[in-house]
């Protein structure tokens, strides 16, 4: 087999790995949309906030240091300790769960039975609030996130495969990408197991299907909302860690949410398998397109390809990959 073949394979593998990350972000949206019909505009900012919180805890930053210093004329910045990574991740998860409680208690509870557009607006408000609150709490400078995962190309793999074809120098895959993929796969698998085989998972699916019926069999909507927002917070944390470790914790991290949109258009807003397969298709599609067509049209196709693909898809299958065909009753 020729070098070209292996290079194409490399592009596909890279696409799949990127795709899994897109799926992860998209999953955050799907979880909340399924259970409460809310398109959570704040999902990207949640990832940013989670990553900032993790860095802050890890490096022993004093929360609200700037605010405290301004008011009291102090010069606090760090506690002077470092928190081990695993513990810091658990604490950051705790913060995201607390956040879920607050969202339910102070926002969702008051918006029961409102139109989806009202809830959507509320999440826009939430997104901007969180963005400002995150800056206030942890500072707005770009932060470096190191959770101890290996970075850079995997030399071993490159060497091991370098003699597979003439003119092929071996697969070049990024260590961090591979780890991120492995973790995302485990996470997605556990979400599926959770939703299919546990009592709470069944309750989640029930609520997603019919609120009234769910209430009548003894399911508490408010508890379910806290659980889905906690899950979405958890997914946001994982996405925040992966993306943050790759390109630093900064505002642009919240824009990964934009990458999830085409995935949702493709996979449908209510389908977990849709989010996964949609992510892969977008990931592989954009990498292959850039590899094969990019050089002829000036490159940087990855910025827009996903949207065009999703739009084409919308025209032919508006219900998404796994959605049921929508037939209007007349």
């Amino acid at each position, binding site marked *: 087999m020729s070098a070209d073949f292996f290079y194409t394979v490399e592009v596909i593998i890279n696409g799949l790995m990127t795709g899994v990350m897109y799926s992860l972000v998209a999953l955050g949206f799907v979880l909340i949309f399924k259970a409460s019909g809310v398109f959570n505009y704040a999902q990207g900012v949640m990832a940013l906030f989670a990553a900032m919180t993790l860095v802050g805890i890890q490096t022993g930053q004093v929360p609200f240091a700037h605010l405290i210093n301004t008011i009291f004329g102090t010069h606090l910045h760090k506690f002077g300790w470092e928190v081990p990574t695993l513990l810091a991740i658990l604490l950051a998860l705790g913060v995201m769960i607390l956040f879920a409680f607050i969202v339910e208690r102070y926002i969702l509870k008051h918006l029961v039975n409102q139109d989806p557009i009202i809830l959507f607006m509320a999440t826009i408000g939430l997104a901007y609030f969180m963005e400002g609150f995150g800056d206030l709490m942890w500072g707005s400078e770009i932060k470096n996130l190191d959770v101890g995962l290996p970075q850079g190309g995997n030399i071993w793999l490159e060497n091991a495969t370098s003699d597979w074809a003439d003119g092929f120098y071996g697969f070049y895959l990024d260590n961090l990408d591979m780890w991120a993929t492995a973790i995302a796969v485990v996470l997605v698998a556990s979400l599926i197991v959770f939703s299919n085989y546990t009592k709470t998972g069944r309750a989640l699916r029930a609520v997603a*299907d019919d609120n009234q019926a769910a209430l*009548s069999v003894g399911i508490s909507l408010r508890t379910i909302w806290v659980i889905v927002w906690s899950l979405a917070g958890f997914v946001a944390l994982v996405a925040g860690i992966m993306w943050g470790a790759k390109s630093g914790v900064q505002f642009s991290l919240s824009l990964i949410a934009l990458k999830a949109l085409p995935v949702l258009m493709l996979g449908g807003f209510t389908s977990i398998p849709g989010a996964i397969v949609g992510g892969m298709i977008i990931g592989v599609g954009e990498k292959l397109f850039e590899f094969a067509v990019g050089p002829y049209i000036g490159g940087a196709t990855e910025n827009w390809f996903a949207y065009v693909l999703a739009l084409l898809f919308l025209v032919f299958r508006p219900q998404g990959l796994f959605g049921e065909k929508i037939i209007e009753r007349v």
Partner: protein
Amino acid sequence: MNATAESYVTEDGRTIGAPVMEVKNITLKFGGVTAISNISFDIREGEIRAIIGPNGAGKSSMLNVINGFYHPQEGEIWFHGEKRKPMKPYQIAQQGIARTFQNIALFKGMSTLDNIMTGRFTHMKTNMLKQAIWKGPAEREESLNRDIVEHVIDFLEIQAIRKTPVGRLPYGLQKRVELGRALAAQPKLLLLDEPMAGMNVEEKEDMSRFILDVNDEFGTTIALIEHDMGVVMDISDRVVVLDYGKKIGDGTPDEVRNNQDVIDAYLGVAHD
């Protein structure tokens, strides 16, 4: 003890006990509309209690008050001889009140089996952590729940559609699955909102038989709303009649049939 608290035996030999559910002076308003106006009645242990009345009389609203979807402005609800505090529907379900809906509310994406399984929700005690760490109790509980669900499926004769997503089932079968979900909860009080609406004669006969059998075999107390007077007179022990949010009759089918207010309401109001 007053006269209404005594138990009695029906013609067909079933024992009807003391009141399980008592609604007292319930008034429910939606803005300017008074859906229920100062209504009181009771539902006794082991009986089939029908609620009838023309469209818009407030029947569904009454069930919604009993299962906690609506909160009345005035009145009291007594369950098992205790006054009930204002509660959420899920808490009321946990107390043993199950229901079906006038417009079927099933989990359309799930199979018949899974739908009926959700009826077991209030009986699932083992939490997730335990499920993950200690398989034993969780598995025992799961298999007990499965046995009960299978029993319900056999009872309702719906083995053939166990795995079918309920969204694809014809209307009559969906109604039956919804009854199955409520039965799986092994409720102390079962509320049925027009269980036979939109059914053909044969389906109605089946449903009547199921309702009678549930009551007979499990001793389940049932309150049901029904339009078909023939069916109501056939299967219920006592009937309460509502009209424009007011109670205009209460008693055995014969008593109600001969009540002048009831006759007027039914002759005066054209209904479907």
